[in-house]
């Protein structure tokens, strides 16, 4: 019983390390789309791992934590997809190392980048 609890705590620690790496990627990446990739994906995996670890530490919490995991898995890719599409539609610059841009023909470059409202 004690071994399961320690294993759950270690899984939570691994999830926290993924969350920290997501925040580090948000600071270090050179481009908006790389920041979306690093930040959102890594912190979603870290959140799911830490919730699974807490379900192993406390018995009886597993059903509510499973519902939270399902909601995070549904809602978080929707929001990051919407941000990426809006930024690309607005004419955000890519970094120099990116080779392909599949949405290039749909971009309207006539819009100005920064207006006051």
């Amino acid at each position: 019983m004690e071994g399961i609890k320690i294993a759950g705590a270690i899984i939570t620690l691994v999830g926290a390390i993924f969350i920290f790496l997501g925040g580090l990627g948000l600071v270090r990446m050179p481009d908006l789309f790389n920041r979306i990739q690093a930040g959102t994906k890594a912190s979603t995996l870290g959140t799911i791992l830490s919730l699974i670890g807490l379900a192993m530490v406390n018995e009886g919490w597993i059903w509510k934590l499973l519902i939270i995991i399902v909601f995070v898995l549904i809602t978080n890719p929707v929001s990051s997809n919407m941000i990426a599409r809006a930024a690309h539609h607005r004419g955000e610059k890519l970094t120099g190392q990116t080779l392909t841009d599949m949405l290039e023909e749909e971009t309207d470059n006539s819009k100005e980048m920064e207006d006051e409202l």
Partner: protein
Amino acid sequence: MVDKILIAAGILMILGIFLSLYRFIKGPDVSNRVISFDVMTVISVSVIALIAHFAGRIIYLDVALVYALLSFVSVVVIARYIERGL
């Protein structure tokens, strides 16, 4: 033993929140700040679950449930606003 490992996990999560706060302060335009807001809400769900473990109450998990359901709505509204036309 278990509580010491979980305190270390909580300190790592706080460091992740501070790193995304750095991106919020420095970010060049609105899109970077919206990503920072999104990452902060996702980290807050696991911080709330950790607080529920330290308090020992299952009722605190309902707040994390509300976050997981409703946090994406404001991000979607801001993204639609940036794309011109709500």
